[in-house]
C-alpha cells in the first residue's frame, strides 16, 4: 500500500524547527522561535491525525491491519549482511504513538508560549522541545531495533538537556545528570540485548522479528547461557533498557528528580511520551517476548505490578505537587507494564496488550493535563509545595475544572477515559494472575486517594498568604488544558479493541462488570477518604502520620532508595572501584606519558648547550664531520 510517503514530514518538521530555532534563535526575538516551533508542531499534529484517519479507517481489511513501510533506506552498510537501515514503519501502535506524541507536544508547545514567557533561553527551550519531539517520533516509527536505539539515545539526550534547562540551579544540574546516568546505565542492557538478539536471529528488522510464525528463532532455541536461553537473556536485557526509560523499579529514582525541569517538559517528556517509550518497546517486541521468552514476560508483569504499588504508596506522603504527579506517573507506567506482562497473544487473549496501549493513550492525555494544570498552579502561586496552596478554586476556575476532570479520570470514575482503560487492565490481570490483580485493585484505590488528596489540598481548604492574588493563567495556557480535558473525557470511547491489538485483528471487548463495579467502588472509597481527611483542614492527617510512625517516615523518604543508591555509589563503587582506577590512570598511564615528556625536556636541556651561536664552531663541526665521513668511506671501500 502506498500513499503514506508524506509521513516522513511528521518527524522532519520538528527536526527542521530544531535546526532553525537552535541556529537562528539568537538572531530574532524569542517569541518568534516559540511561534515557529508551535506552528511546525501543529503541522505535524495535523499530519499525524490525517495519517491515523487514513490508516485506521481508510482500508479496513478483514485480516487486520497491515504493517506498512512507506520508506526505508540503507543508512550504514558495514558488510553485506550487517546493514543499518532507517525508515518508517506504520502499524497500529506506531500510528497511535504518532497521535499521542504530536498531540501532547503540540499542546505543550502552545502552553509554553504562556508558561515560559520572559524566561531566559526561551528560544533554546523551543529548540530542545523540537529536538525531543523529532527523536521521539523517530523512535516510534523505527523499522528496526537499531534505529530505535539511536533515537532512544537522542530522546535521552534531549531529556537531559530539558531537565537541566535551569542550568544555574545546582539541583537541576544534579537531576539531569542523574536522569542521564541512570537511563544510560539501563541502555547498556538494551544494547547488549540488541546485540544478542541480532546475533541469534541475524536481523534487526521488527517486521521480521515480530511476524507470527516466523522461523528465524529456529536455531536460537538451543543456545543458552547459565541455563537460561539466549532469547530470554536478550529480551530481559532489552526490558532493562525499557525499564530504565520507563522508570520501573529499581531504576525509578531519576523520574521524581527529573521534575526539576520546567513543568511543560515534565508534562511532555516525563508523563506522556518519553517514559512510555519503555512500554512501547515491550509492546513492539511483544510477540518475541511472549512466544520466545515467557520468563521475561513474567518479570515484566511483576516489575510493573510492584512499581505501581510502590510508587502509589510513596505518592500519598509527598508534598511537592510535581513529585506527587511523578510518582503517580510511575504507578500508571507500572500498570501498563503489568498489562503487557499478563497479556496473551491474539484475540481475546491479547486483552492485556490492548489495555496497555489503551491506558498509554488515555494516560498520556490526562497526565499531560494534570502536569499542565500543575504548571498553571505553580505559575500562579510561584511554589511547588502543596502547603503553599489552598482555596485556589475561586481564583482559577478553568484550571480547577480541568484538574478535577483529570483527577476523576485517573481515579477511574465511570464514563471517563481512565475508567475504560483501567478496567481493561484489571480484567486482563484477573484472567491471568490473581495476585497482580489484587495489587492493581489496591493501587486503584490508592490512586484515587492520593490524587484527591492533592486536589483537595490545592483547590479547597483555606487561602494561604500569596505574594499576589492568584489569577487564572492566560488563554494560551488554558486552551491546551481545555483541549486535553475534552480528550481525557472522550478518549475512552475510542474503539481500541478494534484498532490496536496484539495480532492487529479486531476483537470484541465487553465491559466486565465483575471487575468494573468493585474497581469503581474502591476508587470512590479512595476519593471519600481523601474528602474526609483533606477537604477541610484538620489535624487528622498528621495524627494518622504520627500513628504510622516509622512507616510514614520511610514512605515520606521514598523508602530511602536514593540513600541506598548514594551509599552504593559513593561508599562502595567510588571508594573501592573508582579510586583505584583513578590512581592507576593518574600514576601509571599519565605517569608514563608525562615521563616521556619530561625525559625529552631534560635531554634537550642538556644538548642545547651545543647550539652556541658561534658560526665557526658550526663550521668546524661540519668540516670535521665531512672529513670523518670521507675517511670512513675510504676505509670501508678500500
Amino acid at each position, binding site marked *: 500500500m502506498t500513499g503514506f510517503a508524506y509521513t516522513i514530514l511528521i518527524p522532519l518538521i520538528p527536526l527542521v524547527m530544531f535546526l532553525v530555532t537552535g541556529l537562528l534563535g539568537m538572531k530574532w526575538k524569542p517569541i518568534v522561535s516559540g511561534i515557529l516551533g508551535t506552528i511546525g508542531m501543529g503541522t505535524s499534529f495535523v499530519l499525524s491525525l490525517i495519517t491515523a484517519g487514513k490508516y485506521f479507517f481508510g482500508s479496513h481489511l478483514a485480516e487486520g491491519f497491515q504493517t506498512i513501510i512507506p520508506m526505508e533506506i540503507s543508512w550504514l552498510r558495514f558488510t553485506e549482511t550487517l546493514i543499518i537501515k532507517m525508515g518508517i514503519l506504520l502499524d497500529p501502535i506506531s500510528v497511535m504513538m504518532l497521535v499521542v506524541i504530536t498531540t501532547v507536544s503540540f499542546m505543550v508547545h502552545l502552553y509554553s508560549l504562556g508558561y515560559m514567557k520572559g524566561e531566559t533561553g526561551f528560544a533554546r527551550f523551543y529548540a530542545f522541545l523540537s529536538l525531543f519531539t523529532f527523536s521521539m517520533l523517530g523512535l516510534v516509527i523505527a523499522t528496526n531495533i537499531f534505529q530505535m536505539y539511536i533515537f532512544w539515545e537522542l530522546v535521552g539526550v534531549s531529556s537531559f538537556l530539558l531537565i537541566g534547562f535551569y542550568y544555574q540551579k545546582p539541583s537541576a544540574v544534579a537531576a539531569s545528570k542523574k536522569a542521564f546516568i541512570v537511563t544510560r546505565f539501563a541502555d547498556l542492557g538494551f544494547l547488549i540485548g540488541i546485540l544478542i538478539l541480532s546475533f541469534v536471529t541475524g536481523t534487526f528488522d521488527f517486521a521480521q522479528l515480530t511476524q507470527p510464525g516466523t522461523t528465524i528463532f529456529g536455531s536460537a532455541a538451543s543456545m543458552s547461557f547459565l541455563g537460561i536461553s539466549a532469547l530470554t537473556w536478550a529480551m530481559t536485557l532489552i526490558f532493562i533498557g525499557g525499564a530504565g526509560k520507563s522508570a520501573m523499579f529499581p531504576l525509578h529514582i531519576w523520574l521524581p528528580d527529573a521534575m526539576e525541569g520546567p513543568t511543560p517538559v515534565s508534562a511532555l517528556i516525563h508523563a506522556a511520551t518519553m517514559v512510555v517509550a519503555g512500554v512501547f518497546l515491550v509492546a513492539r517486541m511483544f510477540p518475541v517476548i511472549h512466544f520466545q521468552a515467557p520468563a521475561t514476560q513474567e518479570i515484566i508483569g511483576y516489575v510493573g505490578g510492584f512499581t505501581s504499588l510502590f510508587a502509589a504508596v510513596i505518592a500519598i506522603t509527598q508534598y511537592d505537587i510535581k513529585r506527587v504527579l511523578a510518582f503517580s506517573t510511575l504507578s500508571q507506567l507500572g500498570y501498563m507494564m503489568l498489562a503487557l506482562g499478563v497479556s496473551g497473544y491474539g484475540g481475546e487473549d491479547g486483552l492485556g496488550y490492548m489495555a496497555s496501549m489503551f491506558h498509554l493513550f488515555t494516560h498520556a492525555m490526562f497526565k499531560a493535563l494534570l502536569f499542565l494544570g500543575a504548571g498553571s498552579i505553580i505559575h500562579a502561586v510561584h511554589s511547588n509545595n502543596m502547603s503553599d496552596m489552598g482555596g485556589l478554586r475561586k481564583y482559577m476556575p478553568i484550571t480547577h475544572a480541568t484538574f478535577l476532570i483529570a483527577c476523576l479520570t485517573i481515579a477511574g470514575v465511570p464514563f471517563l477515559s481512565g475508567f475504560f482503560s483501567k478496567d481493561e487492565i484489571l480484567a486482563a490481570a484477573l484472567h491471568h494472575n490473581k495476585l497482580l490483580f489484587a495489587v492493581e485493585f489496591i493501587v486503584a484505590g490508592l490512586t484515587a486517594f492520593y490524587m484527591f488528596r492533592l486536589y483537595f489540598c490545592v483547590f479547597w481548604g483555606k487561602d494561604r498568604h500569596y505574594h499576589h492574588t492568584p489569577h487564572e493563567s492566560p488563554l494560551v495556557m488554558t486552551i491546551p488544558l481545555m483541549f486535553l480535558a475534552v480528550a481525557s473525557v472522550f478518549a475512552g470511547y475510542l474503539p481500541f479493541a478494534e484498532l490496536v491489538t496484539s495480532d492487529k485483528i479486531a476483537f470484541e471487548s465487553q465491559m466486565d462488570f465483575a471487575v468494573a463495579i468493585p474497581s469503581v467502588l474502591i476508587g470512590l472509597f479512595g476519593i471519600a477518604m481523601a474528602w474526609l481527611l483533606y477537604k477541610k483542614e484538620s489535624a487528622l492527617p498528621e495524627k494518622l502520620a504520627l500513628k504510622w510512625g516509622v512507616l510514614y517516615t520511610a514512605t515520606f523518604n521514598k523508602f530511602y532508595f536514593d540513600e541506598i543508591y548514594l551509599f552504593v555509589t559513593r561508599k562502595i563503587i567510588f571508594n573501592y572501584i573508582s579510586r583505584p582506577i583513578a590512581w592507576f590512570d593518574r600514576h601509571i598511564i599519565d605517569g608514563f606519558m608525562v615521563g616521556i615528556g619530561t625525559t625529552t625536556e631534560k635531554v634537550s636541556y642538556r644538548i*642545547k648547550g651545543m*647550539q*652556541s*651561536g*658561534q*658560526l*665557526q664552531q658550526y*663550521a668546524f663541526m661540519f668540516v670535521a664531520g665531512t672529513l670523518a665521513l670521507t675517511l670512513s668511506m675510504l676505509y670501508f671501500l678500500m
Partner: protein
Amino acid sequence: MIEGIGIEHFLVVSTLMFFTGICGFIIRRNLITMLMSIELILNSVNINFLVFNRYLYPDQMQGHFFSLFIVGIAAAEASVAIALIINIYRSLQNIDVENVNEMKY
C-alpha cells in the same frame, strides 16, 4: 693539455687553496677575512672543474661554463655578504664573528 705539467700539480694547488680557505674560515675572527676564505674555497673548486674538464673531456665545455657560473654566484654572494657585514657593523660597531651570536638556542 699543457705540456710537462701533470694533473696532480693542479690538484695539489687547488687542494692547498681549499684547505687554506677552510682553515681561514674556521680560525679567523674577522668577517671580511672569512668572506675572503670562502672566495678561496670557491676558486679552488673552479680550478678543479677546469682541470678535470681539460684532462678528462677536452672536447667538451661543461666544466668551463660551470666555473663561470660559480664566479657569477660568488660575486652575488660577496655583495650580499658585504651588505650583511655592513649591517652587523652598524648594530655592533665591529665585525667579529664571535659577537654575532644573538640567535643562539
